[in-house]
């Protein structure tokens, strides 16, 4: 009973932390801050997966946690930092939605997530169910980051956070998904990121900037 309580508390704590790191991206403006927020968030998600593996006895989740940590908390942030250095001080100085409005919209989105996931939380018997709305909230916040930011690199980080939120959701709802699908999802995310990375270089080549607002030639 005590263990159940602790498990539940820790999962909610981990998910809240992941959500707060997501909010961080809406608050700060520099790419370095985004990359470290993403790295920490991936670390937290890996931690939650490992904790769920420990409490539920499903050892496949240890592998998932290791993959998330290795790839998303270490390798990808390193690549992103290299890209950031290459493309100079690209700061989100004027995103489509300003900081205060973004942060408040994020709060509203979290409330929406709570109401949307009510049937799921009601149905679930797992001790991790309290954290499910937070994972969904992170999903919505990441979507908002992709929509409201102007720099291509920030949009990539939004997409990566979206992937994190889905991994977290899968871990919390069902203690993970079948391993073969998990591996496939992982490969997809990795390939997607690598292709996006190549695209960032191409965008910079053709447009001389990473401002997505420049990508407005194709209208109607």
């Amino acid at each position, binding site marked *: 009973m005590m263990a159940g309580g602790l498990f539940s508390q820790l999962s*909610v704590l981990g998910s809240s932390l992941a959500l707060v790191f997501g909010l961080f991206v809406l608050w700060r403006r520099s790419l370095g801050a985004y990359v470290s927020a993403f790295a920490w968030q991936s670390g937290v998600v890996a931690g939650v997966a490992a904790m769920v593996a420990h409490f539920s006895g499903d050892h496949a989740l240890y592998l998932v946690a290791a993959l998330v940590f290795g790839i998303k908390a270490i390798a990808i942030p390193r690549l992103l930092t290299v890209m950031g250095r290459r493309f100079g001080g690209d700061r989100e100085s004027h995103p489509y939605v300003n900081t205060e409005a973004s942060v408040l919209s994020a709060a509203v989105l979290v409330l929406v997530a709570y109401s949307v996931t009510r049937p799921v939380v009601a149905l679930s018997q797992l001790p991790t169910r309290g954290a499910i709305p937070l994972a969904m909230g992170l999903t919505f916040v990441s979507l908002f980051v992709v929509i409201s930011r102007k720099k291509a690199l920030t949009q990539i980080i939004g997409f990566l956070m979206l992937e994190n939120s889905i991994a977290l959701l899968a871990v919390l709802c069902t203690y993970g998904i079948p391993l073969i699908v998990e591996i496939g999802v992982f490969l997809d995310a990795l390939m997607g990121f690598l292709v996006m990375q190549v695209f960032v270089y191409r965008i910079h080549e053709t447009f001389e900037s990473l401002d997505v607002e420049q990508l407005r030639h194709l209208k109607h």
Partner: protein
Amino acid sequence: MTSWLVELGQSTAALLMAPALVGLIRWLKARLQNRCGAPIWQPYFELHKLFAKEAVVSTNASWLFRAAPYVVFTSTVAITLVVPLMLVPLPFDGFADLLVVVYLLLLGTFFTALAGLDPGSPFGGMGSSRGMTVAALAEPTVAVAIFALASGAGSTNLGHIASRLIASPMAALTPGHLLAFASLFIVMLAEAGRLPIDNPATHLELTMIHEAMVLEYSGRYLALVEWASAVKLLIFFCLLANLFVPWGIATTVSAPALVLAAAALVIKLGMLCVAVAVLETRVAKLRLFRVPELLSVSFVLALLAVTSSFVLR
């Protein structure tokens, strides 16, 4: 009867401790910056000096200018009577409510802002407008952050919140509490005029907020205002300490419990002073248009704290 005496006693103790708090932070900052620094008792000497000096008042100032320091001081002292310092439950439990605290804080801020506007000096007006901006964003956050705790404890009475937490220690680690703590910490920096929102040691036009509002004051008025802001800092520290980490608070009116409570309070206040001093040394002051961003982040954290503690009840 004894509880009333203890209440008055702890309020007086708070009044007397407050300048030492400010002195401690200044001394710690000096040490961190490799200076010797003035002794911790320096603010007491300053207050003593100011009370002895003549108060110079501008000819444009009205009665408000002279009355404001008293209002601010009284409202701040009133808050010390309703905030849990060393004893819980308080004899003022009838009104020891969250909303009372928020309104009293706002009363003080409001009168300070008016006093900044009253003499008609440019620095005062500028300080007042900046101060009200910060207050407008920070005050709701105080309410919402403490409300997060209140929804967990089932009552907005501060004493009840503290005693409920003593009864169930595991609740202190819930995300609601942690988020509310983070939010209230940021607001404390805003309300008490600390870096990164306001620099208490500057009189540069570009950077001062609180100092600009009280720039015209001198003599006993300045002493009252400075003392009141030190007490405000102490109140926020006590809120942070006793609502989130209430262990050590006396629940009965007995000598050993009260001594333990006093010692616990001093330790907690000391730790918070260290935290604030280190933070002030590490961060630079935020540009003024970035302050609303930080405060809206703290508001959102408080909002998240409320939702998570509401849902997980």
